[in-house]
């Protein structure tokens, strides 16, 4: 496998995206807003007390960190891969002497750099305005890192195999929209998992959506006991592993099924 070519591609994409940063800043702004809405909603709801043990400060810091983590794990490549398959542009990728996943990875890394250039200052300013208090221990900070990496891996490969469904169905992007809705509802965006009604608790804790962005944030903002953290990490690692396996399977069959359109 040609890793050098892959790295060159990554650098190239990153530099070209920086030239269009206004566009990507707008995208980042759009992703931030729904979470900001729920930051304010829950802050208003928890005024002068706690909700299921979560104070106004915890809720505010949860959402501020979630804004960043969500953008770090969200993958734009998944939306474009489907189009590239549909329009037959993937022919070019298939001919290149490196794995086509480098194309997705390069836009991933380029995206993270550009989005963070916008989102870190903005959340910083919001943190100064809202001034949420939360105590961070170094143990929790340390556990946050592997869970963040697993979250990225899970979300990237899970979305990627959904996007690859475009080999069989032309409008597979509706699957991605469904995934976004599920991440919103039971993945900790609409409400921290602890505040969901009882009947939503079990699906939220077992299905992969919570582990795509909310779980690392729950660790960092001290909402979980060590038992809960370790159980969560096991579930998260399991889903991440499974998503890589599914991706490999789908890719192999998809390429075989694919017939070139255009050139």
């Amino acid at each position: 496998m040609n890793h050098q070519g892959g790295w060159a591609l990554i650098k190239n994409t990153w530099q070209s995206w920086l030239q269009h940063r206004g566009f990507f800043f707008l995208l980042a702004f759009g992703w931030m807003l729904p979470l900001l809405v729920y930051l304010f909603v829950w802050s208003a709801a928890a005024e002068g007390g706690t909700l299921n043990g979560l104070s106004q400060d915890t809720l505010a810091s949860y959402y501020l960190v979630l804004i960043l983590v969500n953008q770090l794990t969200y993958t734009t490549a998944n939306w474009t891969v489907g189009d590239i398959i549909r329009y037959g542009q993937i022919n070019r990728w298939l001919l290149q002497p490196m794995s086509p996943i480098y194309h997705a990875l390069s836009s991933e890394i380029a995206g993270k750099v550009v989005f963070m250039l916008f989102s870190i200052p903005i959340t910083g300013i919001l943190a100064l305005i809202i001034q949420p208090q939360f105590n961070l221990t170094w143990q929790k900070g340390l556990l946050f890192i592997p869970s963040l990496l697993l979250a990225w891996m899970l979300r990237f490969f899970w979305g990627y195999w959904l996007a690859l469904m475009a080999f069989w169905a032309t409008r597979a992007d509706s699957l991605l929209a469904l995934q976004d809705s599920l991440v919103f509802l039971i993945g900790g965006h609409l409400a921290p998992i602890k505040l969901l009604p009882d009947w939503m608790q079990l699906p939220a804790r077992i299905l992969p959506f919570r582990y795509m962005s909310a779980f690392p944030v729950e660790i960092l903002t001290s909402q979980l006991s060590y038992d809960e953290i370790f159980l969560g990490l096991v579930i998260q690692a399991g889903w991440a592993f499974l998503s890589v396996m599914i991706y490999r399977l789908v890719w192999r069959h998809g390429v075989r099924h694919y017939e070139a359109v255009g050139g």
Partner: protein
Amino acid sequence: MRYIKLIGAFFKVSAQAEMAYRVNFFLRLFYAFLNLLTGVLSLVVIFNQVEMIKGWDLPSAMGLLGVYLLLGALRGLFISPSLESVAGMDGEIWQGTFDFTLLRPVDKLFLVSFRHWRIFALVDLLIGLGVLGYAIHLMGAALTLGAVIHFIITLLCGVILLYAALLAFSALVFWNSGFLFTWVINDLFQLARYPLGLYPGWLRLILTWIIPVGLMTTIPAQALAGSLSTGMLILTVLFTIGAFLGATWLFRQGLQKYASASS
């Protein structure tokens, strides 16, 4: 009369173009269903935790959601498609084809506002009406005739305000054609999903007087819940008239500034 006939013709042409893609209809149904599901479940989750947030209970918040969905549907039905085709990404101003639009023998503002229709948005319109009906059902006997009249007046104001805001942001494209102003206002519109009172003071001021997305939904919902004062009603009507005049003025100024981009 001529203008009403023209709208009929625009509608028919758009409908015929869309009818050619029948699978899209089912996809639109699917997205509309997701939209309804996330909207209603959000309220269920929030009011499962608290009975009331800043004076809003479940029925009145449901009323606000209905207004939000209704306005969103009208935006998707013709305001956004028409304005986006001029000022959006790859729109006529980017492409330079706006010259052909200017040459048509009708009022430019009319043409820019009503040209394109997305008939599948009628499904969203029905859903919005349904949620509104459900909210009224939840309110039960609390609804008075006066409240209904106030509601209809303020809802009309909401539609006009939405149109004015979208038009004003689209007009900015004449000054900076590279920036996607229509995206900014689309993003900010999401803040209208919840009552203004939930937001902190500084944000509330912005969402009321500067970018009045908050006003569009909160005021009609207050009227429906019967908690709108007569003073606020008059102020809203006056503000709406001012915003409409301001936006059309800005658009005509921009039109003066427009210089063809084609060679």
